């Protein structure tokens, strides 16, 4: 049997936040985790269980207090933090709760933005963005600003933005949090379809219906995987 490629690996991952002068909160208490290529994992757990913190750490948005992270086999805790933004742009696609599109940019420009940050030329980013938006049925809405799009359309733009650099993994933080049930299903179906074509996805969700659509569910509690 061929050895599976590990996209994300975390070992004894810990994160402590300082609250005030003397108080500390342990958000993560030694998390070990592995995510294989083409996996679709749903990270579930109550509020404060540490799932968002975990996502921020593996998304290189924050540094762990202790422990190690490997992304595509590279130990990120050994790499200079200065290279995190570029690494993030090239290898990690984010889909946030509440779409998080930039209101002053059109749908196409929002999608292009990630490409531009990854060093893509303007023309290539534009072509790629148009291709992705057309694929998601937004060919007529490319030049519209986010406030001219429906919730579902905005989330599709956000997914297109996450995909423009063909990332190793998509990290989705409550991607259906602000959508109605019908649109939520549509978005999850989109993610499933992407996964079926080989895209690795880690999704953080409260929604058990959404979690059930993933291949694997991982539960967190009190900063640990249970």
């Amino acid at each position: 049997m061929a050895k599976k490629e590990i996209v994300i690996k975390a070992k004894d991952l810990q994160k402590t936040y300082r609250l005030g002068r003397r108080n500390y909160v342990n958000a993560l208490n030694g998390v070990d985790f592995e995510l294989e290529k083409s996996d679709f994992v749903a990270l579930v757990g109550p509020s404060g269980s540490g799932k968002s913190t975990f996502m921020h750490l593996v998304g290189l948005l924050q540094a762990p207090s202790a422990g190690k992270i490997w992304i595509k086999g590279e130990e990120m805790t050994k790499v200079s933090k200065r290279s995190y933004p570029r690494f993030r742009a090239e290898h990690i696609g984010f889909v946030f709760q509440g779409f998080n599109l930039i209101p002053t940019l059109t749908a196409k420009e929002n999608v292009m933005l990630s490409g531009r940050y990854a060093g893509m030329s303007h023309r290539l980013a534009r072509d790629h963005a148009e291709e992705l938006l057309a694929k998601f049925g937004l060919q007529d809405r490319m030049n519209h600003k986010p406030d001219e799009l429906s919730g579902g359309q905005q989330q599709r733009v956000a997914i297109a933005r996450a995909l423009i650099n063909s990332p190793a993994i998509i990290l989705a933080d409550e991607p259906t949090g602000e959508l109605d049930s019908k649109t939520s299903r549509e978005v999850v179906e989109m993610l499933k379809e992407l996964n079926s074509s080989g895209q690795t996805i880690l999704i953080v969700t409260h929604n058990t219906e959404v979690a059930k659509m993933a291949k694997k569910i991982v539960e967190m509690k009190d900063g640990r995987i249970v």
Partner: protein
Amino acid sequence: MIFIWLIKEAFVSLWRHKLRSFFAVVGVMVGIAAVIALVSIGKGVEKDVKKTVEGVGTNLIVVLSGKIDTSQSNFNQSAMGNPANFISGDILKRQDADEIAKVEGVKAVAPIALASGSIRRDGQTSTSMIMGTYPQIKDVMTGFSIRYGRFLDDSDSNKQNIVVGDFVKEQLFGDKDNIVGEKVMVGKDEFEIIGQLEKPKDAGALFSSDYESIAIISMGEAKRLNGGADKILRIAVSAKDSTDVSATVERIKQNMLLRHKDDEFSVLTQEDLLDMISSIISLLTTAVTAIAAISLIVGGIGISSVMFMSVADRTREIGIRKALGATSVLIMFQFLVESVVLAVLGGALGLVLALAVNEVVDAKTVIEPSVTVSVVILALAFCMGVGVLFGLLPAARAAMKDPVEALRQG
């Protein structure tokens, strides 16, 4: 090419907050408008003065009482010397004029004295200045063209004859065109108007009125009115040859030193006078412009506060951009570009405002403001500097935002 993208984004972002952006640029706009308008008005005045000085004659040399150091190092400090020297009138004598006339290279000499008293007629008094001089003044300086009658000649040296400019006519005779032959009172004496001056064509607009507000009498009559004192303000000298002016100046100095101490007089050429006047005007313009530039700093503070507001409003956007891969440097650059765009927009609007002010000044006054390309480039470069300087702190704040914290806000 990310730079062009950032400029485009800056415009989009500023357009989204039109009113806020407008208030941010008002300070810079007013500051730049004031600076450009003042500099161009200063340049206009300087040009006008230059025209006047160049228009008073060719190969002109002026001997003044008082010491004026026109060397570059001391010029600004001592250009005017002791102002009392200019008005004392007790240093230069008619003998000086007569001796200078004998100096090699001198074509003509005319001392200029101020006579005390005012010109009156039928209870009306003219504010014109009464100048005593030789008839040769016409050969030394231009601007003494006659419209009616004649100029003074040697036969007028002890006659109570007077040549007047337009102001005297207007103040004492109203609309009457030709007043030659009319009588006016100077002190207790009755003078006959023998000539009326023409407004000189070569004089700058700002100073042409000087020629209109003078009345000229003979040197002998001026001395009599001054109670026997010469009261010579300056001696105007014309050099024979334009290539020999410097040498003639040197010879006049040597001649003057036979009767005076070195610090009692100055011998200046037209060029010296131009330099002196230009320097004074430049100094004044710089001082006033520096005051106006303070408003630019106030404008910069306005931009800074708007940029701080913008950073606070767009914290979530900063978080998104960072999550998508924007480096801190790029975020900083983005906000700096916005700040510079705001400042340069303010500068451009200020330039338009300054041009409008100049148009009004041009239309309503005799000054012709002169805007040079270098002033415009300098002003816009200064705006960019203001944009960078005052955008630096808000941009740094944006760049330092933690992406996770930023994403939680908004």
